[in-house]
């Protein structure tokens, strides 16, 4: 594991939004994790836990309050100069959560997708047109769609336009912010397949954000679980799925519907109650409990998790 190349290192990242005078909302709280080159990192967590904020902070739409972000070993947190900003925009792309509001209603699809090209010096209209048609074909849209305006498309089509816009620039790292949450199930599968194909062809690294584990668990190499601006568990997908340690992860896992109706009916739903943690005496830490498997908890909780691990976990009964 250690010899794998890290593409993104996030260290103690904090992000606060000023809400009222002197009052701050901690959207990200000491988030620390790495993403390896070529992997598919799934980030899950309930709505409002700060997933989008994390994505936007990485691509530097927001200025982090504290902490460090290293991309390929180069620091991209702190104040950005022209060079670093260009480095960020050239290498990282983001697919936005809301396919409807993330496309400018006054621009044609051609203009939207080609916008990044002209910034990168491809100004020739013919060349742009050719590349747009090519990428439209990849995401399953037709060349004639290029002259249309976004409102003429369905939600799924718009999501694919957003994907095309991100992919055409050949980024090495993509932040996909719930790219399928707004879509119906049949299109979800298509879009995920599309992303995975692109990943294979272009050698992408993907940070895939979702709000439930069911979407993520099938194709993520590693999974991070987020809760209230805090990363509570992190590990290989199989490991997290088999040995969920943090109660929040367990609750998320128990929420995945089972394809077997009988089992589904008998399944015990777990609910997560943040009150169970008593952090007044011991302060919690993000601890590597087994190689590559991190969990957030106080020393006594960690002890309990170790015992759980030894005894084997079956959260379903």
């Amino acid at each position, binding site marked *: 594991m250690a010899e794998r190349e890290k593409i993104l290192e996030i260290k103690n990242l904090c992000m606060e939004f000023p809400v009222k005078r002197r009052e701050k909302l901690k959207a990200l709280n000491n988030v620390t994790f790495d993403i390896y080159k070529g992997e598919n990192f799934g980030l899950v967590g309930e709505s409002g836990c700060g997933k989008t904020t994390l994505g*936007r902070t990485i*691509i530097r*739409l927001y200025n982090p309050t504290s902490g460090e972000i290293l991309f390929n070993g180069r620091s991209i947190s702190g104040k950005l100069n022209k060079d670093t*900003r*260009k480095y960020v*925009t*050239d290498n*990282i*792309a*983001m697919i*936005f*959560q*809301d396919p409807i*509001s*993330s*496309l*400018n*209603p*006054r*621009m044609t699809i051609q203009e939207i997708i080609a*916008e*990044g090209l002209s*910034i*990168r010096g491809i100004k020739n209209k013919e060349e742009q047109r050719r590349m747009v048609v090519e990428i439209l074909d990849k*995401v*399953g*849209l*037709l060349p*004639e*769609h290029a*002259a*249309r*305006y976004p*409102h*003429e498309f369905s939600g799924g*089509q718009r999501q*694919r336009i*957003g994907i095309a*816009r991100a992919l055409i*620039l050949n980024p090495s790292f993509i932040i996909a912010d719930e790219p399928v949450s707004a879509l119906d199930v*049949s299109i979800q*599968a*298509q879009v995920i397949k*599309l992303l995975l194909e692109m990943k294979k062809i272009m050698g992408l690294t993907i940070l895939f954000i979702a709000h439930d584990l069911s979407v993520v668990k099938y194709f993520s190499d590693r999974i991070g679980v987020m809760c209230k601006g805090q990363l509570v568990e992190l590990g290989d997908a199989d490991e997290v799925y088999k040995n969920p340690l943090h109660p929040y992860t367990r609750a998320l896992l128990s929420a995945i519907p089972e394809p*077997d*109706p*009988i*089992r589904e009916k008998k399944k015990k739903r777990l609910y997560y109650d943040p009150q169970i943690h008593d952090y007044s005496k011991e302060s919690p830490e993000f601890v590597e409990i087994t190689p590559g498997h991190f969990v957030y908890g106080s020393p006594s909780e960690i002890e309990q998790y170790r015992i759980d691990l030894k005894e084997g976990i079956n959260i379903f009964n």
Partner: protein
Amino acid sequence: MTLYEDNKELYDSIPAEKFKRVERDEAIHDAKFQTKPICFLKDVWLRFTKNKASVCAAIVILIIAVLAIFGPGMNRFKYDEQYPDRVNMPPKIPAIANLNLGIFDGGYVLKNRQYDSISDTTKYPNDCIINVTNPQVVNGVRMVDVEVDYYKYLGISDDECYWFGSDYLGRDIWTRLWRGARMSLIIAVVSVACNVVIGLLYGSIAGYYGGTVDMILMRITEILNAFPRIVIVTLFVMVAGTGMFSIIMALIIKDWVPTARMIRSQFYRFKGSEYVLAARTLGVRDMALIFRHILPNSMGPIITSSMIAVPTAIFAESFLAYIGLGLQAPETSIGVMLSQGQKVLLHYPTQVVFPAIVISLLMISFNLFGNGLRDAFDPTLRGAE
């Protein structure tokens, strides 16, 4: 018990090779749209012409503009030619007078005339009498009101008619009206154009950068706004003298503030929108964000408000004319004509009616036209209605 556990043996006896993964393998491809793509300008034109009210408004504006350009040259009078013997003439257009409609016939009511002298051709020459009304007896004498064709009454030939009448100096109102409309439109359009440009730059900077920049810029506008307009105009007139320049400046000095505020609020509305953020992640520069992403989306309010600003500026100019700070004689504007006409409103109402009609038409038309333009430039309305 689960399905699998109940039938464990049966399930397990099936060899793995027999399983096939079910997957929709065909590449996703969407159907062609039924409608044809059309180029932007054609689309704008189509949507504009669909709105009948704004097309009418555009035609009215066009007619007024054409008349403002060519109207003053259409008859033999000059805007500053005075005829002391032909003051306050009623309007007469010979072609319409012949139709006996009761309008534009040069009709003027002479009140309380002796009935007996009606047939006296030295008093009423050239069968100038149109109508006799209101018979009454005063001190045993029969009196009537006589409506005469004032031109025939004075012995003026038909080709010297004042189409819209003349004012208190015998100047032709038709010529002066269109010359005035020309002046008013120039003043309004120039000042509104300047206001929009200043407001656009100022509002964009304040709205886009926000924070301290925004706060300082907005405080400045508040200070500017606190000065009463009359003080500013008076100061300008003192320094630069009366005339077009002073008036235009007077209409610019603080009138760009609402435009700037409006554009600033549009920026606040759109700069955090997802598509602006998305463009930012692509590395789009500030200027492109402002001009390609934010401004086009705030076009609607900008267009309507600047279209409404045109007649408002004409109004403001009229107001200046009323208080005597407008254009100075013999130069004219709609405002000057209104203020002069208002003085003789009760005796010669036509002198105020014509400029009033023009200013009202302009007001309504610019409003409707602005709405039509706003909708025309909004591609999201494509296919609506």
